[in-house]
């Protein structure tokens, strides 16, 4: 018994709680009980994730906890928890209107935990291969959830996500093999040649050409998951057709995990001077995504699809920042990832409420929200203001930091960056106006789901915009320095 | 004395291919007939046909020019020279230095060009269409053939046939996928070049399907005899090429003793006999293709040849 308890370190708990919750949720027939168990499991995982902050750093051949991933684990478990709270109330309404059946919900909750667990695996893995497995399983479980409504659109979205995601993951795997091959001469055969810390510490001695080739595959592979522009085709569909809680975790978490994977590899590349200019490639892809998504935002008629494009945009911004590199830009990138997670999931919560009360996702059929549902309208407006990058929210802080650090170093690229940000700002404000004001359209029924997660996220984003606690700043600085 | 021996050996090689050619033609016909449950003509029938044609009157069209009359001899000569150069039972013969794979392709191209000219000379519809189709097939087959030549040359380091054969006999090159692919491509090319099924049917006189036969439809008498003999020699030439490039075992290389040469001759005859039996078996198992499918068929040969070359680059480096 004692041995069992001592094995229950926070790290193990982060991985084991979701793993144990999967079979439980798959067996519990009552959907209300399932939702509650889901929330409890997420709360336990969050508690474990938070206690990781105070646990000692550690590394084994398979798992690692360092400054970089610990903050993402915390963020992931936190957003996972709030989303599960939102999901519990949201899903109850979906059952009432008959879009989902209790049988599907059992599956849904099990998959939710599978996704949370595999994302945690991907984050704490100290092995390129194990991380790959985590991302793969996370993708598979979200695919199942995207297709859960069984409408032709949902099936199309799931199939597209499935095929593109699989190809992406396959290419990323090839990149992983190439990195192993590059490391194998130096670190010897076996597990050490796949461990992050060993790779990053020794990359100067690796074959630069092999590393460059590997990075191309990794960029295309994980870039597909991040939703960077030429490889983004799955993202809007998957966001628009899946249940809204899934859109929230897709945007808020899975994209982050994929970006994290890419950044880990970038850290390896950064140690070797002879590789191709990884940063420039990432900056270019980031800007392409940003500007492309900025233009696409104007043509959207579906509210969830629109915010999906906004996710492409923000992932582009973060990728640009990390591509630029340097302490300040990396700091901005990390902050941006965090803020985007919080704000975008809050927006999807709001959008979920709106879609439920109005019974539609079409922007043209939603209007006058400020009259029909004032509280929801305030939450939505705050979310859109935050994501569009207006002060005093955290997204403004990160974007401001990014622009100011990028301008002296890459003035032309920064112009494009500013153009893209302004472009999407315009689209956001335009759409927000249509939704909030004008002739009230659609039903006026009360909101069934809980507002708490949405406002909680927004409050955090607001606080982060006004004042970042000293430990967080110090910590981001350390990670930013590691990223090179 | 040594000189005399070399001349004699070269002479043997030269006449061997011509003499054995109609026999091989007879073998393919006989096997094909037996596969179709017919008895088929005797093996020596091609010799008799040639003899008969030699003694018949050659009928010429009124508007036939000198090209028409010269073409059969010129084509036969070109093909014979080519066939005499391909190492059959021994390498390093007197004229082996000139037996270059690319020169060989050029000689065959010459023969084809002359026949195509002759086919168009009289101005009948069949000659024209036959010539144009023959040239189309040739234009598709030639790139594949050159890629095969490159692949083999990359392994052996030379395009000189005699040297290639000697290298393949004496130095183990191992199980090379690229050589297998090259063989595959080469067989496709050989089928197309020799007007065999599925590209063409040497036994047909059906208007819409014949290619080679349409081109030479107007010929008769001794001219036709030359053309038929050229076709038979060309078949043996391709057999010899396959034997020399891909199955060179048993050839007399450096040692020119009577035993080695006898062994070389015996294995050579056995090899081409096997191929003469395999060819009709392959032919009867497939149906003739439509003209529009030729590019796909020969494209496959091209792809195989190109792949062979690429694979060699991987394993050998640039």
């Amino acid at each position, binding site marked *: 018994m004692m041995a069992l308890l001592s094995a229950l370190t926070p790290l193990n708990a982060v991985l084991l709680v979701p793993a144990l919750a999967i079979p439980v949720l798959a067996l519990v027939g009552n959907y209300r009980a399932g939702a509650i168990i889901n929330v409890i499991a997420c709360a336990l995982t969050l508690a474990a994730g938070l206690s990781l902050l105070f646990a000692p750093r550690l590394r084994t051949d398979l798992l690692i906890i360092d400054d970089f991933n610990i903050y993402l684990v915390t963020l992931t478990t936190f957003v996972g928890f709030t989303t599960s709270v939102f999901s519990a109330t949201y899903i109850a309404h979906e059952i009432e209107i008959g879009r989902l059946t209790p049988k599907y919900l059992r599956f849904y909750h099990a998959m939710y935990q599978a996704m949370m667990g595999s994302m945690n695996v991907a984050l704490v893995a100290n092995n390129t291969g194990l991380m790959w497995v985590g991302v793969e399983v996370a993708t598979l479980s979200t695919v199942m959830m995207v297709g859960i409504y069984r409408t032709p659109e949902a099936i199309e979205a799931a199939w597209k996500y499935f095929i593109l995601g699989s190809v992406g993951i*396959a*290419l990323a795997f090839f990149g992983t*093999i190439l990195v192993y*091959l590059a490391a*194998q001469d130096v670190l010897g055969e076996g597990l050490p040649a796949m461990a992050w810390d060993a790779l990053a510490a020794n990359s100067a001695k690796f074959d630069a*050409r*092999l590393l460059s080739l590997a990075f191309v595959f990794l960029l295309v592979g994980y870039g597909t998951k991040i939703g960077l522009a030429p490889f983004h085709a799955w993202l809007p569909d998957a966001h628009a057709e899946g249940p809204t809680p899934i859109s929230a975790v897709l945007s808020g978490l899975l994209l982050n995990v994929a970006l994290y994977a890419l950044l880990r590899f970038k850290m390896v590349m950064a140690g070797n001077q002879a590789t191709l200019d990884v940063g420039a490639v990432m900056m270019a892809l980031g800007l392409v995504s940003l500007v492309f998504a900025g233009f696409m935002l104007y043509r959207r008629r579906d509210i969830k699809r629109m915010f999906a494009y906004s996710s492409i945009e923000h992932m582009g911004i973060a990728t640009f920042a990390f591509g630029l590199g340097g302490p300040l830009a990396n700091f901005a990138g990390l902050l941006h990832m965090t803020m985007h997670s919080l704000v975008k999931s809050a927006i999807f919560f709001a959008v979920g409420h709106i879609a439920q009360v109005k019974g539609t996702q079409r922007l043209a059929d939603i209007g006058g929200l400020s009259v029909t549902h004032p509280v929801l309208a305030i939450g939505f407006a705050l979310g859109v203001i935050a994501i569009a990058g207006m002060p005093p929210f955290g997204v403004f802080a990160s974007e401001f930091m990014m622009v100011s650090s990028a301008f002296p170093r890459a003035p032309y690229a920064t112009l494009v960056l500013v153009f893209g940000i302004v472009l999407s700002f315009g689209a956001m404000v335009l759409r927000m106006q249509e939704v909030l004001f004008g002739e009230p359209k659609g039903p006026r029924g009360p909101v069934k789901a809980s507002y708490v997660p949405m406002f909680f996220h927004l409050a955090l984003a607001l606080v982060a915009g006004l004042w970042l606690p000293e430990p967080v700043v110090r910590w981001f600085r350390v990670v930013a320095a590691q990223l090179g | 004395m040594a000189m005399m021996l070399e001349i004699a050996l070269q002479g043997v090689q030269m006449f061997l291919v011509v003499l054995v050619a109609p026999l091989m033609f007879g073998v393919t016909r006989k096997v094909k007939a037996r596969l179709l449950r017919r008895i088929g003509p005797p093996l020596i029938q091609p010799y008799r046909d040639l003899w008969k044609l030699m003694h018949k009157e050659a009928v010429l069209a009124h508007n036939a020019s000198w090209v028409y009359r010269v073409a059969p001899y010129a084509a036969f000569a070109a093909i014979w020279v080519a066939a005499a150069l391909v190492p059959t039972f021994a390498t390093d013969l007197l004229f082996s230095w000139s037996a270059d794979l690319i020169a060989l392709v050029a000689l065959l191209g010459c023969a084809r060009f002359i026949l195509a000219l002759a086919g168009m000379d009289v101005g009948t519809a069949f000659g024209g269409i036959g010539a144009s189709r023959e040239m189309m097939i040739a234009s598709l087959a030639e790139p594949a053939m050159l890629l095969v030549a490159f692949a083999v040359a990359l392994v052996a380091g030379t395009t000189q046939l005699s040297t290639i054969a000697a290298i393949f006999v004496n130095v183990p090159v*191992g199980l090379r996928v690229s050589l297998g692919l090259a063989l595959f491509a080469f067989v496709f090319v050989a089928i197309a070049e020799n007007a065999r099924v599925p590209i063409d049917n040497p036994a047909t006189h059906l208007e819409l399907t014949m290619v080679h036969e349409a081109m030479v439809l107007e010929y008769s008498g001794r001219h036709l005899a030359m053309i038929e003999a050229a076709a038979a020699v060309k078949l043996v030439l391709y057999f010899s090429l396959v034997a020399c490039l891909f199955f060179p075992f048993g050839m007399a290389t450096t040692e020119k003793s009577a035993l080695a040469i006898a062994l070389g001759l015996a294995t050579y005859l056995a090899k081409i006999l096997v191929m003469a039996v395999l060819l009709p078996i392959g032919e009867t198992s497939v149906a003739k293709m439509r003209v529009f499918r030729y590019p796909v068929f020969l494209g496959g040969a091209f792809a*195989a040849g190109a792949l062979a070359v690429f694979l060699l680059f991987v394993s050998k480096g640039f």
Partner: protein
Amino acid sequence: MSPLAFDIAHLLAGGMLVLSFLLLYQDRITAVLNVFALQAIALSLSVAWQAVVQDAPHLIVTALIALVVKGLIIPGALHRIVRRLEIHREVEQVIGGGPTMLTGLGLVALSILLVQPVKQDVGILTREDLAFALAVILLGLLMMITRRNAVTQIVGFMSLENGLVLAATGARGMPLVVEFSVAFSILVAFIVFGVFLFRIRERFDSVDVGALDRFRGERRDQR
């Protein structure tokens, strides 16, 4: 390494590449499935040979998985799907056969050019396997792009994945290879299962993924 060991590895890996080309060359779905099964068998032989050469008995497991799952079960299941859905007709191509083959040759050349400059001391076998594997991967991608049918897209993906397994086993002493091959098999099984699960045929009267394009962009019908 003895020349014979190298030659056999070369033969099997090269054979996989040739089979990839044959996959592109086929114009009937049943023939595509058969060629794919052959490729999976070639893969399993190749992996088994690597197990012998590298003295890594755990690779035998990977070889067996490749043989049983990809050589037998999945082609069998796909044959069933094809028969049940009555789609054994021709493979619908986005780009014609000739240009596809030429593009394929270009991709092979590209992968050789990419792998060629890699440092010599990774070993000629690894380097060659890498070039072959990359070519197989790119050809699999090409197949996914140029075919419209869901079944042929799956075959393209699995052939891509065969290339990955070839690369992973070719990399000397790579840990977790068996686990990866299991993970990939699950992925593939999911995909095959997905055709059933998503019932593309019943929803769209066809497994032609082009039918899905109707819903591209914005949803038009509203609930």
